[in-house]
């Protein structure tokens, strides 16, 4: 591949067939980190690329009120009230009040049409690092966390990113913190006296904050540290279903991203990995700041970043280089990302491309229209699958239910016949139904495909479709080593 596409494959989503190619790739990467990030997409298959309408991008409080409305109508449906029990009414309720499908559709469209491809790739890395799996209630919040918790904070500090994602209602719900109560909290004490009341510590988020989001098990913390972290977290977050009047009473306000229920909080100071954490709501920021600057965190995440962007087996020098920038800049994400991208550009190794990223790249390279317009999202189309279904079949979606450790950056985890079969099938489906503007030959000429890739494409015979499939499933486009 020529320089432009080799770099775009590793650090971005490939240049669309109608995009101008930059001359100076180093300047391009720098500018990519600063570029504006409007959510771009199509209203319908024949429309021009445009910005997503505001009313399809609800803020948190609207998401919560839609969720309460959804639950209310579902209850009416269950009780057979107000005509809500019909299939049509239930479907209308889902379409009008649940945001998950629309959010995923927006995420996909902006990845296909966005002019901010490097930021979107980095966003995907962090969205995976701070995995919020779909437990149905969280589907209302995942898209918000990606847009406002990650993409909007890409150029800030890691400490801000960590605090923001730890306190995001999606994370607090996914890892059960909204129901956790400190061991000696007023709520737990009060409940102990009542037979049908349950309140206690849930260490789910405390555990993952240490193990996955920051220091990792290599830091050698104990179960006591996990419990202490969980006690620092106790009180944070509130069930999305809670009426606002109740929320005001419990959390003293109606901001879901800043909801702290004093009655559920653990009194007194705590000690996490030797660090004293003071009581009260400020304790959490103290804890996440402590963890954000911990050397074990810097090592853990620098390694992950290198494996995601630089090489399937990054060397110690590369990881060290990121760690040095991290330490010297005190976790400035813009500088950290710049270093990682520089290493990616300078490392000539192939880097395995995630299925999700690969699909975006195939669509962008070919100029296909493989996803429905936002106006048609709920309509049946005999050619184009529902967007959520596409990624479910592909085997990778940020809106799927999955474990909190997220998708692996390790190539070996993705090497399976079924996963490869899906690449072939989707390349076929995109060719047949997405009306690609570019043929295999045109794409190979533009990206400067290697001789091996050209030989592979030529070997499958004269069918334009077979050539398209062979190109997209070539080692070069999948990010695998050549023969």
């Amino acid at each position: 591949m020529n320089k432009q596409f080799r770099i775009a494959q590793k650090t971005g989503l490939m240049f669309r067939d109608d995009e101008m190619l930059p001359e100076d790739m180093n300047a391009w990467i720098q500018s990519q980190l600063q570029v504006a990030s409007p959510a771009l997409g199509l209203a319908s298959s024949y429309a021009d690329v445009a910005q997503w309408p505001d009313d399809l991008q609800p803020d948190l409080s609207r998401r919560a009120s839609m969720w309460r409305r959804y639950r209310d109508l579902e209850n009416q449906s269950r009780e057979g009230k107000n005509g809500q029990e019909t299939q049509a009414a239930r479907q209308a309720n889902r379409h009008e009040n649940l945001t998950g499908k629309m959010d995923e559709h927006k995420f996909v469209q902006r990845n296909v049409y966005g002019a901010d491809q490097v930021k979107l790739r980095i966003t995907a890395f962090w969205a995976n690092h701070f995995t919020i799996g779909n437990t149905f209630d969280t589907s209302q919040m995942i898209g918000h966390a990606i847009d406002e918790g990650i993409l909007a904070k890409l150029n800030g500090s890691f400490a801000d990113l960590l605090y923001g994602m730890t306190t995001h209602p999606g994370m607090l719900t996914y890892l059960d913190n909204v129901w956790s109560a400190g061991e000696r909290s007023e709520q737990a004490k009060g409940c102990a006296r009542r037979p049908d009341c349950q309140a206690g510590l849930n260490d789910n988020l405390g555990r993952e904050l240490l193990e996955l989001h920051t220091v990792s098990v290599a830091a050698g913390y104990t179960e006591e540290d996990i419990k202490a972290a969980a006690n620092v977290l106790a009180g944070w977050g509130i069930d999305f279903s809670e009426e606002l009047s109740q929320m005001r009473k419990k959390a003293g306000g109606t901001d879901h991203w800043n909801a702290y229920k004093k009655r559920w909080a653990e009194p007194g100071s705590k000690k996490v990995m030797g660090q004293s954490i003071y009581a009260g709501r400020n304790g959490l920021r103290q804890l996440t700041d402590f963890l954000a600057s911990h050397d074990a965190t810097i090592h853990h995440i620098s390694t992950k970043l290198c494996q995601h962007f630089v090489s399937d087996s990054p060397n110690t020098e590369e990881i060290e280089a990121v760690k040095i920038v991290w330490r010297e800049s005190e976790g400035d994400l813009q500088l950290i990302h710049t270093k990682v991208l520089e290493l990616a550009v300078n490392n000539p190794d192939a880097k395995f491309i995630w299925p999700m990223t690969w699909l975006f790249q195939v669509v962008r390279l070919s100029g296909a229209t493989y996803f429905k317009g936002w106006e048609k999202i709920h309509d049946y189309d005999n050619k184009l699958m529902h967007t959520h279904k596409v990624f479910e079949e592909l085997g990778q979606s940020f809106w799927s239910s999955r474990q909190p450790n997220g998708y692996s950056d390790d190539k070996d985890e993705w090497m399976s016949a079924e996963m490869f079969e899906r690449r072939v099938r989707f390349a076929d489906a995109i060719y047949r139904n997405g009306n690609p503007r570019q043929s295999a030959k045109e794409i190979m000429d533009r990206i400067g495909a290697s001789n091996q890739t050209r030989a592979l494409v030529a070997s499958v015979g004269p069918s334009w479709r077979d050539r398209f499939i062979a190109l997209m499933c070539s080692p070069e486009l999948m990010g695998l080593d050549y023969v």
Partner: protein
Amino acid sequence: MSKLTVGRRSILKAGAASLFLAGMPVAGFANAKPPGSISVIILEGGMDGLAAMPPIGDPDLMRMRQTITPDNYLALNDFFGLHPSLKFYAQLMASGHASAVHATAFPYTKRSHFEGQNLIEGGGLSPFSEKTGWLGRALDLSGVAGRSLSLDMPLILRGHHENDNFYPASIRGSKKPKADLLNMIAMGHQMDAAQLFTKVARKSEDNVQVPRDPASLAKYAGRAMAQTDGPVASVIRVSEFDSHSNQTENGNTNEGRLARQLSVVDDVIAGYRRGLGEAWDDAIILTLTEFGRTVAVNGTRGTDHGYGSVGLLAGGSLSNSGVITDWPGLGKKDQFEKRDLMATIDYRSVCAACIEKSLGLDHDLIAAKVFQQPELPRIFDHLFT
């Protein structure tokens, strides 16, 4: 959690009598037998064991659960009945190829689906303590590959790098690629990737169309496991057991949400039976659910998250039929935290026995390395002899 250990409590085999013990082979050839296969049906949402296998002989049952206890139950013995949806399973019981363990659970009492599902698959000492699963670790120890019937590897099977996923693609607007094309693509790849594309090509030639319903998948899994070099383990998930409301139909206790889901389980077991063929003789199938449900009916003819439930076992490697239980009773004082069916048998012991039987591993090794619980009670003899 000391109440969960079997210890001094005797395990009672109910359901002996004529119905289940007729024509039973005599056990005692365990050492000569080659290892068998193990299949897990995960029932997501928390299955109501008191409805699946109602203890009709317990005087408190009808007092507390009249609207959700099927009146058309099949009597297994004086004490236990079986939900009418479990027809095939009932036949297996009659022929000595199915057993149940009642009032059992993993040692998890906090009633969260997410934590509970993680624990029953991870099989560690607490939820989220494991990144691999108990079946995956057991397969690791025995050096054989498992097979997951879903695209993503479920936690329960993780741990063994030779695990082989299979879930047929269903992509609208695409056709199955020709083997020639796939073989040419394979030739353009390095060794490991080339092998995988070649495998896709082979499957493309096989022309196997696998339907997606759980029962047909079970049949497919059974067939695969019956092959000489086929996988020895499989896992199938059945969801929607979270019956908070309308567990039964209004006025018909034999139908409703739970009845439908139990029919699926019954079809899955039947699918395995058909698919396994002669390999059924060495097979064990067991259900797994994150928790049982409350003893009392709630305000919406359903039940809420609880603790103890029932585990259903089937397969030719069972040498006996019966309900294995140390029945705790349903009275308020017998309930866990005055609301749930108490669990008196640690279900990890059941899983350990199934591993011991199918994979031929030593119980102490399973207890220590698979469940990290060296003192886990061994109940193998109650199930397999």
